[in-house]
């Protein structure tokens, strides 16, 4: 090991610096924290939900460096120096089409759905190769049957309310 080695051994609490919803932040975490735990319990950002803890339901969807990921499967220590965005960063006005078309019922899956939906809307080129249904398949909803969500996404992409 060289004298300039930057590797670190963590045994318990240490600080992680990253960009959260556009602003730099430093949070004291435990090495065992999942990003989901850090967001919800250390930072009080409870918009991101825990539905399964196994990366199946997508209720914990956040953006990591601009890509949707399951926060329940991200060790917080891995986000240092990176960009994290949560549902709290979505501009409410852009969610109107989802509201109008019945994209939400009980709301438990909704923040994750909103994140993935906005990401799809922001990446229209993907529709050349992917269907919206395929891109949404990582967000489980038990209430809507998905049509309300798809209608909302379509309306948003067409600039309709």
């Amino acid at each position, binding site marked *: 090991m060289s004298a300039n080695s930057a590797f670190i051994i963590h045994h318990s609490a240490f600080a992680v610096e990253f960009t959260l919803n556009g602003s730099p932040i430093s949070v004291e975490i435990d090495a065992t924290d999942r990003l989901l735990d850090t967001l919800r319990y250390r930072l009080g950002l409870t*918009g991101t939900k825990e539905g399964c803890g196994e990366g199946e339901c997508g209720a914990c969807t956040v953006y990591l460096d601009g890509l949707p990921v399951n926060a329940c499967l991200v060790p917080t220590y891995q986000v240092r120096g990176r960009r994290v965005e949560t549902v709290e960063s979505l501009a409410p006005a852009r969610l109107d089409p989802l509201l109008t078309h019945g994209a939400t019922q009980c709301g438990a899956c*909704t923040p994750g759905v909103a994140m993935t939906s906005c990401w799809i809307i922001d990446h229209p080129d993907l529709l050349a190769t992917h269907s919206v249904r395929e891109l949404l398949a990582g967000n489980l909803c038990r209430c809507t049957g998905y049509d309300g969500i798809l209608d909302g996404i379509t309306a948003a992409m067409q600039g309709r309310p």
Partner: protein
Amino acid sequence: MPSRGTDASTSVAGIFATVHRLEGLAKLTGRERYVDDLPLEGFLWGATVRSPAPRGRITAIRFDPAIDWSQFTIVDSRDVPGPNIIALIESDQPVLASGYVRHVHEAVVLLAHPDRAALRRAAAAVQIDVAPEPAVFDFRVAPRPDQIQYGADNVLKHLHISKGDVERALAGSPIVVAGVYETGAQEHVYLEPQGMIAAPEGDVLTVRGSMQCPYYILKALRHALGRDEARLRVIQTPTGGGFGGKEEYPSTIALHAALLALKSGKPVKIVYDRGEDMAATTKRHPALVRHRTGVTPDGRLLAQDIEVVMDGGAYVTLSPVVLSRGIIHAAGPYACDHVRIAGRAMFTNAVPFGAFRGFGAPQTHFANERHMDRIAARLGLDPAELRRRNLLRDAESTATGQVIRDGTDRRAVLEHALTLADYDNKRAAHVRHNVSSTATRRGIGVATFHHGAGFTGSGEVMLASRLDVAGLADGSIEIRSANIEMGQGTLTVFTALAAQRLGLDPVHIRIAEADTARVPNSGPTVASRTAMVVGRLVERACDDLRHRLDVAEATGNALRRALRGWHEQHPGAELVGQAQYEPPPGVVWDDVHYHGDAYGTFGWGAYVAEVEVDLRTYETRVIDFVAVQDVGQVLHDVLARGQVQGGVAQAIGWALLEDCRWKDGAMVNAQLTNYLIPTSDDLPRIRVAFLETPYAYGAQGAKGLGELPMDGPAPAIVNAVAAATGADPCVIPLTPERLMQMIEWRMQNAELKAQD
């Protein structure tokens, strides 16, 4: 009254047409706070230690000495102040097992600690030793003597329906068709797991959490904690899905949190992990249904002899009521003069089964609708035609002798569904496709069905639901009801009903938290009753408020001025409009003989499913789905359509994907990786249409809607698979493995026959 058929509903005009889901934006932005989102100071996490065995005496509870147990709050059955019973229908289920267990995952010990990680390690360090006794798991066969654990025969409940003389009618039938059908359990998978917070707040123990029925929990707390209601308070927090899974189960978790809170003196929060939730809480009752049906050669039903058996699991919970609804619907929406339905719910050592959307009717409708197609095949009739010939007409009566007079044209519901689904053309196209394709087979299937809205028989009368609408000093009103929002639209519908009634802008209407300290008992949020029954109470309480204000016709701003004026005249006083449930006239139900008017009204449905079966993998894809129903006046188009689509999706999962795998009566695939609900990529667009025949006694003419959509999809899909493949599936979930066995067996038999 004539039905109007439309592809979109002609929902109630005015406010209903313009108001969006009121709490929708809060949900979309993540601002809506569920129980695990609430800020909480100085609390303990709670965890449950559960039985590893399905039956036996607890011989020891061992605490690993490596852990410093003095840091933990520990609760067992001895800490229950009152009777160790979760009050429900019968007093058989303990809050915590006391010396004896009856199912795997039965709660034995509770722990609390401020650090959740330490708590998890500790929970894993408590061993429950059980001396095993013979357990029973198969509800379909008679139990051995050493497996009897309830009554003389493990029958939790017997119920019978009898109309006419079924034995004679069968004996005289030219053709008799028999069948046996089975449906599997189903896990709710509400996306928000179960959770409760119990906190001593001065002299009052307050419980907050995810629930459908605050007053059920209040009753259970009162009973087991030996406290009167003045020292108890139950508050529903925004609930992330229920589907019946949060009807009765929350009383258990509320009691657990309460016991830990009382012992520790601190707030205690219990939130189940998904795996624990799936494995340890209630599921839909598995069922086996036998049919013997006498028919004429031209397809008229002469006699229906039906046997319904359900698995209730290790405690009674709501099995008698699930069985009740199951048998009442078991003969379908058809006219038949001779009907016998014998039902029983069985004790087994499985984790107890409980309420789930549809509540027994999806099980029996699956059997009956699958059986109708078997009859059609036997007679060489188009399955749609068989239904046409038998659907109830007004003035005809159901299996319980209820004369239907609601004006719904049930044939029109069916015809509309067939038209939207392009049924005749698709059937012809499938014949051509199935001859030429080597890769896939296609088929189309129908189901017609009904669902009684509200509580059975005199249930609504016994509930005696009450609701208040208070007029506040600032000129706004507050609706006070125990009925909750779990996604089905309660908040929006109640607000819109009141807005319409009083000419108010929704911004001047509040809905109080469902807090037992502040709202009267308007009944549970179950049985598709909230809009229809309780919505009507909202309207009548609004009328009463106006009456008390002595401003009989005032609406809008005039009403608001009158309210402000009243409060100026009566400072510090409350002005509350009230309403109490009144049954519709002429509904007569005999609970002893199970005869008469089972429900005030029924919703009616006709669903059509088109499927494609992959011959290589035996996977079934639903490629088109049409759902047509008459549920009275549709109040809100988007909300109503969403309920239908969600129910259809949930039922598609039940029919094809959701397979509970059991070991010792407990679910072993208790992970979302292994218990599969439909993703967006597994479903077609679900096309919805409503016919509307207003119901005079429901709010604005509405009937119950939430559960009907659960009854039709499974049989429609399996009928379609039968049409596609020539197989005769009678069991759901119809997994690819099951379908393969069925088709392979058929092919082998065909080959053997060909060889003869």
